[in-house]
């Protein structure tokens, strides 16, 4: 028996549907056509990529690579924002929010916005990046170049060209690039026996700041969700990204570019959205009121962020905004943070007023205001009987008290009693 027949009889042989688990696995591995639901087919003649996408073949020492280029004016509007607006927001939030020292001097004029299109999301050495889009501000506009490898044999040329483009810039901006695009490209460089320039480039990955600010505000922090819900971007008739691997496999097999050409548009949209998203992150950090947040959540998160960095004034204004705008479930947290921000700034009257508001609120969620007031009366006002009263009332919040909290309260109570006793002796 020839190997082929053996394979057919053993692998794809006569099996009934009962072997469903195995069949499913084999089908997935052995019959990718099933997984390929790429929409309508095209009739008529096949067309090569250069007839459908504007671009040119660039020569490298390893061969030619197709590069598409598109330039936008800085006044190009993507969603509700102009691309050039990014150059007007301050740079410091990049470092503030990521705490990555290498991003301290980020300059969006020296930055490459990078996004890859790949043959899968599984990662590992069998996943290829067949397109890399890079965008940068230059000559008063924003240029997107898209490197495209028509098949695997062009990979080295493709990567060497990318290497050149990367070398002309000092920073990278990506969305989930730290976990996906950059390691994937590094793998490709190694497999092509080329040195990867990526490790040395500071990478400002917008996914992390987006998560930090908007995690609680939106159902997810995927780029498409943020585009639709935060940035007012409508992709129109774009292809779903899960089609992309099989569109590419089809192109490699047939050479017909009519479907894969739509991926160029998809990739450009991703890059423009990164520009707008970076702008929104920086604006929101710099001036939360101008950023026009939808709900109080962003204000709350930013308030916390500023407090961590000791920026109490900015924190106060964020938290005041948050308290005005956020929903009831977040009030307690907003009041708590705001009262602490006041306290740190020495605005005691406002803190005390807020703690008293918290105490009289029906939705109380713990002994926090009692404890803070007890501290205030003990250490600042030195009114020991009122301090003790606060401790006593804190003990009444029995449902909320953890064991360490109880211990701390008991400790505080004993100390205040001693102080009170001493004060009484001194008076007498």
């Amino acid at each position, binding site marked *: 028996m020839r190997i082929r027949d053996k394979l057919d009889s053993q*692998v794809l042989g006569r099996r009934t549907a009962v072997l469903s688990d*195995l069949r499913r696995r084999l089908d997935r591995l052995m019959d990718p056509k099933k997984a390929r639901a790429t929409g309508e087919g095209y009739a008529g003649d096949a067309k090569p990529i250069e007839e459908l996408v504007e671009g040119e073949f660039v020569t490298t020492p390893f061969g030619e690579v197709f590069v598409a280029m598109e330039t936008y004016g800085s006044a190009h509007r993507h969603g509700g924002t102009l691309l050039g607006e990014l150059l007007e927001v301050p740079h410091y939030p990049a470092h503030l929010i990521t705490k990555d020292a290498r991003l301290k001097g980020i300059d969006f004029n020296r930055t490459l916005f990078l996004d890859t299109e790949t043959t*899968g999301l599984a990662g590992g*050495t069998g996943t290829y990046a067949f397109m890399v889009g890079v965008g940068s501000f230059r000559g008063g506009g924003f240029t997107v170049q898209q490197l495209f490898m028509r098949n695997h044999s062009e990979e080295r040329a493709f990567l060497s060209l990318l290497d050149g483009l990367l070398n002309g810039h000092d920073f990278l901006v990506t969305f989930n690039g730290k976990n996906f695009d950059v390691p994937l490209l590094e793998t490709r460089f190694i497999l092509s026996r080329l040195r990867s320039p990526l490790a040395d480039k500071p990478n400002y990955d917008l996914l992390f700041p987006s998560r930090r600010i908007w995690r609680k505000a939106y159902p997810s922090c995927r780029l498409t969700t943020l585009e639709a819900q935060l940035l007012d971007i409508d992709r129109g008739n774009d292809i779903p990204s899960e089609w992309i691997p099989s569109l590419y*496999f089809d192109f*490699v097999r047939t050479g017909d570019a009519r479907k894969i050409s739509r991926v160029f548009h998809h990739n450009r949209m991703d890059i423009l959205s990164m520009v707008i998203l970076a702008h929104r992150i920086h604006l929101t950090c710099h001036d939360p009121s101008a950023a026009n947040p939808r709900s109080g959540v962003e204000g709350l998160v930013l308030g916390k962020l500023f407090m961590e960095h000791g920026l109490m004034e900015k924190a106060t204004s964020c938290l005041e905004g948050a308290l005005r705008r956020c929903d009831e479930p977040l009030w307690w947290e907003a009041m708590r943070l705001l009262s602490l921000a006041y306290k740190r700034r020495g605005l005691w009257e406002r803190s005390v007023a807020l703690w008293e508001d918290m105490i009289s609120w029906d939705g109380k969620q713990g002994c926090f205001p009692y404890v803070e007031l007890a501290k205030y009366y003990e250490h600042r006002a030195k009114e020991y009987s009122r301090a003790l009263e606060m401790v006593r009332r804190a003990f009444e919040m029995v449902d909320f008290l953890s064991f360490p909290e109880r211990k701390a309260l008991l400790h505080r109570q004993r100390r205040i009693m001693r102080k009170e006793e001493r004060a009484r002796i001194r008076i007498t």
Partner: protein
Amino acid sequence: MNHFEVSRVDIQEIVEGWTSSKDIAPCIAHMERLEARRGEYVPLPDFIDGRLAGALEKRGIKQLFSHQGMALEAVRGGKNVVVVTPTASGKTLCYNLPILNDKLKDPSVKAIYLFPTKALSQDQMAELQELIDAAGEPVGTFTYDGDTPGDARKAIRAHGDIVITNPDMLHTGILPHHTKWIKLFQNLKYIVIDELHSYRGVFGSHMTNVLRRLKRICDFYGSRPQFICCSATIANPRELAERLIEGSVELIDKNGAPSSEKLFLFYNPPVVNRELGIRGSYLGAARNLSYPFIDGGVQTIVFATSRLNVEVLTKYLKDRVEREKGDRDFVRGYRGGYLPQVRREIEKGLRDGEVLGVVSTNALELGIDIGRLDVCVIAGYPGTIASTWQQAGRAGRRSGLSLAVLIGRSLPLDQFIMENPDYFFERSPEHGLINPDNLLILLSHIKCAAFELPFKDGESFGGESLHEILQYLEEKGVVHHLGDRWHWMQDSYPADGISLRSVSEENFLVIDSTESAQGRVIAEVDFVGAHTALYEGAIYICESELYQVERLDYENRKAFVKRSRADYYTDAVSYTDVSILEEFEGKRECGTSAEHGEVTVSTKVVGFKKIKFYTSENVGYGKVQLPDQQMHTTSYWLTFPQGILDEVPFNRWELIDGMLGIAYALHYVASLHLMCDINDLQRCVGDRGARWFARLSREGRGVYKSSAGVEEVSLEGIDPFEPTIFIYDNYPGGVGFSPQLFDGHREILENTLKLISRCGCRSGCPSCVGPTGQLGTKSKEIAVSLLEKALETDEDKG
């Protein structure tokens, strides 16, 4: 520290006491005295780094055993080696020493250690780290497996000098991401494969392919690692090693470690019911024989054949030791399913001498470091000669007398060994066989390899034509041929769909809810084992504490138990049958009809027996409601037609005995034919139409049918009576064995007849139709005449 240093009893004295006792002496079926061996030593060679020599000296090692010295020389000479010496003969130094020595001279050297289980990896990690610390040089040693936290992984990839892992992790986690391990692969000089003998059959066939992939990756990065393998005693260690690594290997099997004189006793419990041939409890015997040593401060290990038996015996010994000494913790149980920290604690207790007695499953048969003990009691024949020696090897210090006792159960195989000690002492242990070019396995790994690195034209991988297989894969859209390369063309990660081991279902958690509703996890039970251990009403024993299963959350794989004071334990009753789903091919050959196709194997647990502690009385029965475990797989089967059966002078019950005997031998011949492990296949005798099945059990043999429930059937009413023997792949989905068996039908039948008729035994033994006692004394004769009749039948007449 040993609590009973002062009052240690003398092993010799106790054994002498046995031989003169009128109760025990008649039960000693055999006594073998294994001479003491003097150690053979070589000086530490000059080329050993001073820091390492110092570290060894701190641990009291000033010279090497001769086998360690030979391994050191062979590795230094650039050879691949396999070291085969008994348990606790300093095997790990055979690889740790040359590798660390090289590492100290050349800091760029890297190594991968492969162990078959995570527990062994942890153990070796600890031992290696100790040696490194003593040498005082930083060598980055890490375990990398499913338990390694995500944030540690990056550091290990960057700084790992010695990476300790298992084949499964290499297969799914490391090879497909080799670019992240560039430093390791560029400098990889050594690959250690310990417990080589566990890579047999399908697991071993996968292993060869994983190693083929590993070598391809090394080649890409320009490294050419050497293999250092260690194995327990099997019949063909060099052959197995050479098949696994596909290179020449130097065998080092001359043990230089000293061993003390050892007594090997076979103990056969007395017959208590002569009519039924039932013997006294072997668990009771194990308790009585091991107790005097534990009581006398002599460290003792007891091996039991199942997890349940481990717990029952542990309870017996703990009860006794508590009564006499007021402390239960001198005796511990040990088995898979205990939480890792508990296992570590027990291992340490054994090394320190804090634990005097341990009752274990074969989990302690592998190389986990528990030091050497004095006495080993094996309660029930472990099933293979290799395992038995491996277990017995746990007893034996460097000096003084040690003792191993094998206790026979009433089971036929055990009884055969008891009656024929020569069979055990003179036969070579089992062979390790693999077939790495099994097409389905090979194909799976070719996909993984293509994912890892594009194949080049002219490259080879395995024994079949790679070019043809790649062409086939291209047709199926898996790879794409361009220029001289084959590129991966799918949005998938092939290693995820390919498991190196048969069982991949999730484990069950055992949760003690005695004290609080949310409870506390006390153990894990593997999926198959859960069906016979965690049904509602079952007594689950863990560390000899009794729990009763209150609720089984089958969906979520959780069993909720409460502590119990029951005076009984439970034992599940289960049945297995096979039904044909579809026949792929069939033929009439050698008087029988042979077919292969797809089958469902279902195992159902129908009920359980309550068995009283100590008396072993059957004190009740319970019903079990559990989903059947179903496995769809492929099978080869052969049916003896009425015509053949009519030509031999036996009744139906005798024919069943003959069939069971043929099936026993055929199972063995089939595994040889396929070069797989015997456990990669299973067998079943029954009806082609699933109307009845023959079953062998502790109570003897029976014929039953299972539709709604399970009931015995009478053979007389069956028409036509045409028994079928099924030999099926013991892997869900099958691994492609059945068409090979179908093709080899004639050869397999001929070899089965040869095996049975040429066997020197009188009326059946474990090497042919199975031990007598289970099948009756005529089984061999019936089997031979059935096979002869079948083979002489011309096909035209059939």
